[in-house]
């Protein structure tokens, strides 16, 4: 799914909001280690720093939009599970998850919601395991929807709770910058290895969604980055394009081929393209100042 980005000119207005080392405190940042104030840098802080309020506003509406679609598509999926429609449920599984995967770092900052929705088999105690992957195992490995009704209801409730909570989240530019890298790290650590979708092998849907989520953030912050470091902005843009081209080869219909169809060389090449992108992307924090 593609979203056209229109950047408001207000984005470029400078203010004192991000001067010095001070990070805007918010609930999202609470979940991450807050950088300690660096005494050495206090004297070199810029007199003014960019105002990211328009950018964060834009990202918030993206996150909410994705979340709306996530709830809607999850409901279709859980309805199919509850109706015992095995094949339909399998078809709806990966596309519904993609909306979640695009905004994963936001969800991860909201406490238990991420494990409840997205935990894999050994991520949590067996007794607490629920969510997408629990149902995934039933659909693909046990080849049945039987007994999944409770998990389906729970999943939809968790998705709705995420939608409710996302309104309250206090986004800032720092969360966006780290979130973009986190999305790619997600790909690196579980999608590339094929561990994420152990039973359905729909890893490429998640892969693409994570990359799209990271790209959305990049597109929003891009003008500011271009001002700070045009070379880096260009490099990141090129590498998003290269990775998406690489991914494009595995498209099939509206989705992607089964991950087991990829050979080792193809997987390694995807992984290397991803690293090539994530490395410069991790320097996007330049726009935040010191």
């Amino acid at each position, binding site marked *: 799914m593609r979203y056209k980005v229109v950047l408001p000119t207000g984005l470029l207005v400078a203010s004192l909001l991000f001067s010095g080392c001070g990070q805007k405190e918010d609930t999202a940042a609470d979940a991450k280690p807050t950088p300690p104030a*660096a005494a050495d840098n206090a004297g070199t802080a810029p007199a003014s720093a960019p105002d990211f309020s328009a950018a964060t506003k834009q990202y918030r509406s993206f996150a909410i939009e994705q979340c709306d679609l996530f709830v809607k598509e999850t409901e279709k999926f859980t309805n199919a599970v509850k109706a015992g429609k095995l094949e339909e449920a399998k078809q709806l599984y990966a596309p519904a998850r993609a909306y979640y995967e695009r905004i994963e770092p936001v969800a991860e900052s909201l406490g238990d919601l991420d494990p409840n929705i997205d935990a894999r088999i050994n991520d949590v105690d067996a007794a607490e395991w629920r969510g997408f992957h629990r149902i995934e195992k039933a659909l693909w490995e046990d080849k049945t929807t039987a007994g999944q009704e409770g998990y389906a209801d729970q999943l939809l409730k968790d998705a709705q709770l995420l939608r409710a909570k996302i309104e309250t989240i206090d986004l800032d530019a*720092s969360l966006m*910058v780290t979130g973009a890298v986190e999305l790619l790290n997600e790909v690196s650590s579980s999608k590339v290895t094929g561990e994420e979708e152990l039973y359905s092998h729909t890893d490429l849907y998640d892969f693409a969604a994570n990359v799209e989520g990271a790209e959305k953030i990049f597109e929003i912050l891009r003008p500011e980055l271009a001002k700070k470091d045009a070379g880096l902005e260009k490099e990141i843009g090129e590498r998003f394009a290269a990775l998406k081209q690489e991914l494009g080869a595995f498209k099939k219909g509206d989705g992607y081929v089964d991950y087991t169809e990829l050979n080792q060389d193809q997987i390694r090449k995807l992984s290397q393209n991803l690293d090539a992108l994530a490395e410069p992307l991790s*320097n996007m924090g*330049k726009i*935040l100042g*010191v």
Partner: protein
Amino acid sequence: MSDHKQQPSNDSILNKSLTRRDVLRLAGTGGLGLILGGGAIGGLLTAENKRKEGARVSASNAEERIPFYGTHQAGIITPAQNFIYFAAFDMTATGSKALQKLFRAWTAAAAAMSEGQPVGDESGNYNLPPVDTGESAGLSPSRLTITFGAGPSLFDDRFGLGAKRPPSFTDLPAFNGDQLEPQWCGGDIGVQVCADDMQVAFHAVRNLARLARGTAVLRWVQEGFQRTAAADPKSGTPRNLLGFKDGTANPAVTNDQEMNKVVWAQSSDGPSWMAGGSYMAVRRIRMRIEIWDRSTLKDQEDTFGRYRGSGAPLGAVNEFDPVDLTAKDKSGNLMIPADSHVALARGDGSVQILRRSYSYSGGMDLKTGQLDAGLLFISFQRDLFKQFVPLQQKLAKNDRLNEYILHVGSAVFACFPGTSKNGYIGEVLF
């Protein structure tokens, strides 16, 4: 540590006055009482102090630091360090600009790391990842050398270097018995990293790979080791994993004339850009050590043509005794079998190479449960096809050792001449 090697220099010692720091340091070592006890002795103490400082500078300069810049690249005739971490890269970017940019970045990083410095200045920005990965912070340079070379594939049409390829520089021909596995072969660029500390070597490869992201990717890596200087203070010829001394017959790296004859490409040899460079052959040679371990001592010594204990040629007494390929025992048999490793490698002595090999351990072979271990053979020569190839052809056909070894990896690299502070490695190509 190495004070005993240093002679105090006589110039200006007596003029040197004690600084506050000197006094504090002497206090720390119990010397202060002497200063306070007799003024006249002060000069001698400053001399002592100077001597120590000299030793310290020398220890870091001469013993821990190998200059990166120079006529030739470091790591070729540099006496072998304790460890190697070899990395072969493939370019993913195309165009000569991307290649030049990579070489420049690598040169700056390699020069800094050879001095024990991080690969770049830290910004101190908490919103950015650190520039250097940090695991070698505070460690000595550990005689780190980083040697770069171009593989034959770099001279295809991706970088416009087709015309620069030395005429005879191609992948090695197939040798008898080769069982090459693609994952241990080739590479657009070879980087030999050696150091007396494995963490220092690892840090170098890791940071070069990081700098290359988006431009080049790792194709294969192999770490290797030798006995360390600490374990072998006399620096004897190292033993390979078959228990035999390896490298006894190497040419003397201190002999410039010999190095020009054996190791350094000369401008008259071919492309002028390679003058002062050297061609590197890399072979990953798996040893069937389990089989070797059940061979008799007699078999083992006949295989190498040397005594296991002393390293002396069979029939001789000391390691460096001349190899007499005609010597016979009482029954008229050759002391050194004609198909032994030393007999074939030595030949008539006309073909020489500079060997700089390391042992490797690649964990366990999951198929057999045996150790994947052997030799990361590396040699430098002026001309691969006049030196390494005929030698290896002969060995591959007849060497008794072939029963116990298996060539699984192969690569060649044209190692550039050295560069100066204003230049960069590989600049000669453009």
